[in-house]
Each structure stands twice: as C-alpha cells, then as structure tokens.
C-alpha cells in the first residue's frame, strides 16, 4: 500500500518552474530515496509534502486521503538547513518543538529522556545550543524530528555533518524506524547510502521526475552488457576462441586467477559465449557488471541514459 502519492504536481515560482508534472508514489514501510542535483526541485517537492507550500496543480495523497494541515502531526521533517534557537537550552527547545507537533509536555519529556539516554547525551539537557558542536546539534535535531513517532519521516541530507561513527548510528536508527513501521523519504547526494538503505528511488532533474522505481530493478534495467570474468588458463587461446569479441585482460598478481572484462553488443548470446569460454579455460566466476547508483545518477542527469 502507498502511504504517500504525488500526482502530477507542478509549482511555478515567479521566474522559474520548480516542479513540472511530477508524480511518484511511496510504498508504506519503505525507505524512499529522493535524488537529484542541486536546484532540481527536491526541496520544493518536500515542502509541498510537508504542507508548507501548496502546488499550483496536481495533488498529494497521504494515507489514501488528500493531504491536509493536520497531517503534519504524522510527518517528521529534518530540513537540510538545520535550525535550532542558538540561545535556548537543548531540553527546553526540544520540548517546545515536540509540543508544536502535538505532544503534551509530560509526554515530550518522557520520550526525550528515552532518546537522550539512548544517544548518551543526557548532560546536554541544560546546555545552550550555541555551546554544541555541529554534529551534536544534528543529533538533537534528529531527535526532535522523530520524537512524535511520525508515520512518515522526511530527511533532507541526514548524514551531512556526521562523523562515520555517528552516521552509522543514525543509519541504524533509520533502519530501526523502518522496522517499527515508519516510512522514510530521504533526499541525498550520497549514492552509497542510497544503495545501502533505500528500497525505492526517484530521480528529479530539472523539475521533472526522470527515473523512478525499486533500486535493484533500476540497476538491472540499466545494467550494460558488460561482464566480469575470472579464470585460469591460457589467455591466447581464450582470445582466439572469442575472436571478434571485445575482451580486455588484467593481471592478477596475487593469485593464479586471471581476470578479463568482456563487453558484448547486447545481452543476447551470453550463453554461447559462456560455453565457448568454458571449453577453453576454467571459469572461477562470470558476473554481469551491475552499475552503481552513482553511475546511473550521473548518466541520467547528463542525459546519457536511455530513459
């Protein structure tokens, strides 16, 4: 079931079109990556989902109904530009934001205690935000975002500013929340994190949704007909056997295995090639080279991908 679907949404600002007929749907319980270069319109889309601005045309459905103002209680939003009152104490501030999200004061305090203990930051409660480091403030901001246990979480570049240890901790928390049934949309430029945790993605470029789908499916879809071979045997013989095929060998100094990259014009006839290889040398492995999300992203944005 879809928790959120965006249907034909367009948004015009005074001198540019920020979103042009964008549609996408986010399955419940998934981690959904919203990718795209800077200025593509991701933030505008996120603001529309957060009910901050209204689309000029199109609609947003949340849990089967048209998105309304009260839905913000069920959404948690971590903006890219982190914002906290610098002069306010951490605890007090967290309570304030929690109450604006509809929690009672006592409920807010008990949930905050839980998170502060979990992140081992109890001693920050009475500190002013201006005395925290950037990474520390990020943690506080993260807690504020998830405190009201929203059904839908939207993270805009959640890992920026975190050291690897804390980034890992955050990743685990995100996966935890998914396990508990939350749906997570996150916008990022960090492709390795997309590959690690996202189930689905949408790629927004120049105000349009140019690529949507499940991560693995997309990778398969754009996998080229390039293969990675590991073998032992005579290279010359193999070359001769595969006459006319684009093959490049590479030395593997540490072991007896040799490797080669084979580029085929299409995926047809792979079996034929495999049997030819099999007759000539001993195959250790034969793998289709799957493109990384990074390659797909760059190729799609630069228009090299056949969409």
């Amino acid at each position, binding site marked *: 079931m879809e928790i959120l679907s965006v249907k034909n949404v367009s948004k015009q600002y005074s001198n540019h079109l920020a979103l042009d007929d964008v549609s996408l749907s986010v399955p419940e319980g998934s981690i959904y990556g919203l990718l795209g270069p800077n200025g593509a319109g991701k933030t505008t889309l996120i603001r529309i989902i957060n009910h901050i601005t209204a689309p000029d045309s199109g609609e947003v459905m949340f849990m089967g109904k048209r998105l309304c103002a009260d839905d913000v209680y069920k959404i948690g939003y971590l903006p890219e530009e982190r*914002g*906290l*009152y610098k002069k306010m104490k951490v605890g007090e501030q967290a309570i*304030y934001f929690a109450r604006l999200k509809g929690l009672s004061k006592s409920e807010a305090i008990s949930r905050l205690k839980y998170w502060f203990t979990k992140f081992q930051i109890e001693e920050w409660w009475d500190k002013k935000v201006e005395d925290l480091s950037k990474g520390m403030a990020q943690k506080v901001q993260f807690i504020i975002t998830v405190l009201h246990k929203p059904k839908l979480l939207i993270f805009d570049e959640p890992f920026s500013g975190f050291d690897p240890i804390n980034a890992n901790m955050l990743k685990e928390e995100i996966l935890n929340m998914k396990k508990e049934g939350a749906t997570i949309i996150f916008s990022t430029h960090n492709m390795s994190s997309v590959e690690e945790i996202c189930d689905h993605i949408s790629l927004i470029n120049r105000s349009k949704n140019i690529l949507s789908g499940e991560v693995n499916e997309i990778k398969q879809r754009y996998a080229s007909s390039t293969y990675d071979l590991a073998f032992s045997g005579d290279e010359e013989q193999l070359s001769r056997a595969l006459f006319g095929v684009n093959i490049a060998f590479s030395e593997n100094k540490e072991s007896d295995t040799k490797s080669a990259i084979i580029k085929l014009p299409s995926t047809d006839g792979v079996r034929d090639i495999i049997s030819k290889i099999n007759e000539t040398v001993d195959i250790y492995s034969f793998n289709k080279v799957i493109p990384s999300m990074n390659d797909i992203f760059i190729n799609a944005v630069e228009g090299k991908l056949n969409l």
Partner: protein
Amino acid sequence: MGKIGIIIAREFNTRIRKRSFIITTMLMPLLFVGLMIAPTLLMRMETDNSRTILVIDHSNVIGDKLISNNKLIYKTTDKSEEDLKTQQSGLFGYIVIGADVIKNPNDIKLHTYESSTLDTEYAINRELNRIIEQERLMNHNIKGLGSIINNIKSNAKVTSFKIEEDGEKSASSSALSMGIAYVFGIFIYMFTFMYGMMVMQGVIEEKSSKVVEVLISSVKPFQLMMGKIIGIASVAITQFCIWMILIVIFSNIALQMITIDPATIQNSMQMGASLPAGVDTEAMTALTTLTDWSFLLSIFGSFIIYFIGGYLLYAAMFAAVGSAVSSVEESQQLQLPITIPMMLSIFIMISVIKEPNSTLAVIASIIPFTSPVVMMARIPYGVPTWELVTSIVFLYSSFIGMVWVASKIYRVGIFMHGKRPSFKELFKWIKYN
C-alpha cells in the same frame, strides 16, 4: 493550549528571563524617580550650609531691616573693616554699606572669605533693593504709608480648571498635563519602536538560523508571525506594568524619605498654601500625582489601548520587513516606511503638546500611523469622546488590514534567501496566493 499559545509562551518566557530585561525593568523606575527627587534632595542639602554675613552699616538704616532666611543670615556688627580683614570661622563674608546708601545705592560692597555665587549675590541685591525702595517711599512722608504697603502686597497664583462635558470642574495643572502628555507620548513611541524592532530581529533570527524551516512544518506562517507579535507584546505590557508599580512604590518611598506626607502636599496644593521651604513644588506635584491611583489607572488604560493598537500595527510591518531580509543591516532601507511615520508622530506630538486642539492635532490623532503617540499626548488635556472612538476604530481596523498584508509578505519572505527584495517585489508577494 493552541499552537499560537505555545509560541506566545516561548517568546514571552525566553525574553523575560534575559538578564538585560530584568536589569532595565528594575533600573528604569529607580532612575525615573531618582531624577524627580534629585532637585529637592539637592536643595535640602544646600539649606544645611546656610551662610552668615556680617553687616557693617554706616547708614544705620538698612542693617536692622535685613531679613534673614535659611540660606542667608545677616548679622549687624560693630566691628571695623580692619577687624574682619583676616579670615573668620563660620562666616561667609561681610557687607559694607555706605552712609548715604539711600541716595547712592551703589555704595555697597560685599567681601567674602570663599568664592561667592551668583545666587547669593542676587539674593543680597534683592533684599537690599527691597529695603532701599521702602526707605525712599517713606521719605515722601505719605500718611499711613505702612498700612498702604501692607495692603497692596499681592502674591497672585493662577489655579486652573478644566470644564468637562458633564459640567463638572476639576482642578488641572497645565504644566502637569504637558509633562504627562510628553512622557506618555514618548513612552508609546519608545515601546512601539523598541518592541517592534524586537519582532523584526526575532523574525530575522529564525530565518537566518533556519529554525523557520523546522517550525513551518508544524505551524502555519500566520500562527508563527502572530505568536511572535503577541508574545513580544505581552513582554512589553509586563515591563510597563512592573514599571508603573515600581514607580508608584519608589515615589512613595522617596516622599517618605524626604519626610513629606503625600496627603499634606495634596491638601496644601488645593488650599493654595505654600509648601515647606526647600521643596521643589513642580517635582512634588508630579511625585504626588504619581501616587494617585485613579489618575494613573485612566492614563494606564488609554496607554494600553493605544500601545496595543500602535504596536500591533507597527509590529506587523516590522515582521514583514524582517521576513524579507536576511540580516538587520539589510533591513535599513525597507524600514523607511516604518520609521518615517514614527518620527513624524514625535514631531507632531511636540507641537500638539502646545496646541492640543489644533486641526493638525485632531487629524494626526485619527490617522492610525500617528494616532498612538499624538492621541496619547492629547489625552491628559481631555479629548472629545467621538474623536477618541473614531481614532481607536481607525487604529484597530488598519491593524487588521496591516496584519493581513504583512502575513502575505511574511509567508513568501521567510523562504527567500539571497538578494534583498525591492518594494516592487514585496508588492508582488502580497498578490501571491
């Protein structure tokens, strides 16, 4: 509590806990009362060191008639000038009066052991002139002159009355009205400006620290703006109330300190009698007025009405400007439509205080941009009810209109970064939906 309530509470709590707020709130009334009683206290101190002057009277006419007061004490002496040439303890100096002083009044010399003051010399001159004039009159040998002189003595003092609409008359002091008008006009100006700026700074702070991004996913821009405006207004009203209470308390303490019972001043003012020597009448009148609760409440009431109206009107404008810029420095130019009418209202107020019922005064006290300051300045003199009602209706309806316009600008402005918008662009924002 609604979301606006939560926002108001935050704005209020964070601000009144600031050290700067607590300090100004406590110190201002102290300073205010201090400035009022300082002249009286100073006079008191002066009376303690009265000056004794010896009089060598060669004319034998003047000496006995000199009247000492608590500042100058005259003592006739038989000592010669030679005896007094050396420093004498406990003496300010001596006067030598010529034998033919009635005909030749310049033949008077004052010798002092310490440097003399203009005040003292004037006092001596006045006293000598009085006696010489009297003596010259006597020389005309008019029958019954003594009783004539006593008869013609006059000490005129105008007691003013204001004729109210219901025909009742009450004593009013124009000096006092003017003072109060001035103080409260300035108060409104100061509060509106100070707290309006605070709204603007708050908006800029939220925008530049990106807090607004977080906030706006939970509250509507309108709620955020109104919450801030109302929250800061309640800080201002709290400060004003504390000031009023402290001023009343400090005034009472001050009067007690200079051992004058407020009731006796009130009585003596009504009787037209003179106050104990060494008390500054004007300051005492003012101080006593400040201990008069009913008067304070009526002024206080109109202050609250005009402050809230004027503040809301201007704060909405300040909020709109704050949302459009990314730093206080950038806001200067956009602030012009706010600061110009405010400055204007102060200039108009100064002329209105002298002519509280001029055409300018009436018009300016109805136009909402100037009415809070100008009307506040007119109220102590008494204002016809219809003018008051018109002015308040205008003020509050234009505040509603201004909040509507400001919220349109604010909604767009808080997400705009980069170049400072022009007035034309702001105008465009109003028309967005």
